[in-house]
């Protein structure tokens, strides 16, 4: 893999993705064999918005490789509150560490930050923009479950603001995967994602009704529809209820349909689904560590 930074899923070719997933599979098969692999590596965690899960996943990943992490801490205690630019902040912290992870509420933050650091930078989520490491673990989970070619994937929920969806949709264009986008009309894919999909020759199949496509799907990728996207509680409940996955959804789907979710979920997947063979979301979250280990290892290898 020859990337200095991992900013978007779009920059990753099929070969890049396969390199990460193959390395992750090696790690998964023998986790103990990697514990001293990067003994001197120091990872900087720059989280400008809270995300305990993503932060811990990266921290675990670097420690399981034998390295260590330093954390910028809560943003309100740091230089950010004093008005220092992101460019300056990452330039300084980039000087302390071997690689950086950035999480930021603004779209394009990772691209800007990457222009100002000399060490590899990984985008840990930027606004409604991109979340490429989530996509890599999604693809890893999907590859383990259904393979990545010759599949029909239903992507459900908030497709407008959901950055995990934006990254996944672009990455899937590298594979022979048919994507079905299921959402209320007000939360359909934004123009920028459509543009990229069209440019890659991928069809944008849109549905407002999950049942119209459910029977064809090998995988269901479910995302949360947030209350604040709707003017009132009643409308929200009505819309969110239409996309809730429960036993009756599974009964109408293929027996072996795989249900995924980037987590945290609220009530878009009923707890009764958790115990079925279809549920993969906890496995998916667990895969975050080997996949991030693989990515960090490859990035550190390239910059060594």
């Amino acid at each position, binding site marked *: 893999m020859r990337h200095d930074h991992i900013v978007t899923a779009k920059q990753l070719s099929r070969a890049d993705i396969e390199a990460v997933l193959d390395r992750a599979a090696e790690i998964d098969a023998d986790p103990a064999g990697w514990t001293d692999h990067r003994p001197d590596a120091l990872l900087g965690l720059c989280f400008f918005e809270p995300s305990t899960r993503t932060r811990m996943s990266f921290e675990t990943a670097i420690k399981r490789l034998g390295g260590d992490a330093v954390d910028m801490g809560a943003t309100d205690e740091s230089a950010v509150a004093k*008005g220092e630019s992101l460019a300056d902040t990452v330039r300084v912290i980039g000087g302390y560490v071997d690689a950086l992870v950035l999480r930021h509420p*603004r*779209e394009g933050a990772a691209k*800007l930050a990457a222009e100002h650091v000399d060490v590899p930078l990984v985008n840990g989520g930027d606004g409604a923009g991109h979340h490429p490491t989530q996509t890599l673990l999604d693809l890893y989970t999907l590859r383990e479950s259904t393979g990545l070619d010759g599949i029909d994937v239903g992507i459900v929920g908030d497709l407008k603001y959901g950055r995990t969806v934006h990254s996944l949709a672009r990455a899937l264009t590298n594979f022979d995967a048919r994507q079905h986008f299921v959402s209320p009309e007000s939360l359909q894919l934004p123009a*920028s994602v459509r*543009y990229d999909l069209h440019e890659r020759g991928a069809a944008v199949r849109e549905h407002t009704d999950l049942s119209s496509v459910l029977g064809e799907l090998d995988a269901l990728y479910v995302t949360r529809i947030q209350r604040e996207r709707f003017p009132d509680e009643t409308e929200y409940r009505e819309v969110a209820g239409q996309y809730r996955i429960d036993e009756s959804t599974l009964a109408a789907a293929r027996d072996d349909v795989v249900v995924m979710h980037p987590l945290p979920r609220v009530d878009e997947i009923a707890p009764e689904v958790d115990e079925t063979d279809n549920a993969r979301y906890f496995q998916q979250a667990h895969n975050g560590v080997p996949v991030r280990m693989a990515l960090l290892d490859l990035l550190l290898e390239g910059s060594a």
Partner: protein
Amino acid sequence: MTDDDLLVASIEDGTVIDHVRAGQALNVLAVLGIDGSGGDRVSVGMNVASERLGRKDVVKVEDRELSRTEVDVVSLIAPEATINIIRDFEVARKERVDRPDEVVGVLACPNPRCITAADEPVDSRFDVLDDGVRCAYCETIVREGIADLIAGD
């Protein structure tokens, strides 16, 4: 020479931007950063009769030859424009505008959540698409109203 041509006097040296879509003349000046404060002598013809466009605007800037970059930027809001470089009352060079691959530092991203909307030490950067522009940072695509994005100083 038609009556309309007489509305804007010919110039000795400088640039005539012709065939500007009617209504866009002031935006052309804005993208070029010309507001009169630099001392440039500028004349503007609006809604001049045109065989090609029906009505057109014309902008004449004296003693200044537009650079390639400036011509590129004009192309975003006046894709049919022709640029005439005038020397000693003669057209020394005439060219159609060409859409650039990107424009830097000219447009402001309309996405309030874009990192370029924060106080960061970077120029805005837009990739030019066939039918619009796209922020190189947040990837927002703008197809209509590009002139409204011209950053004020």
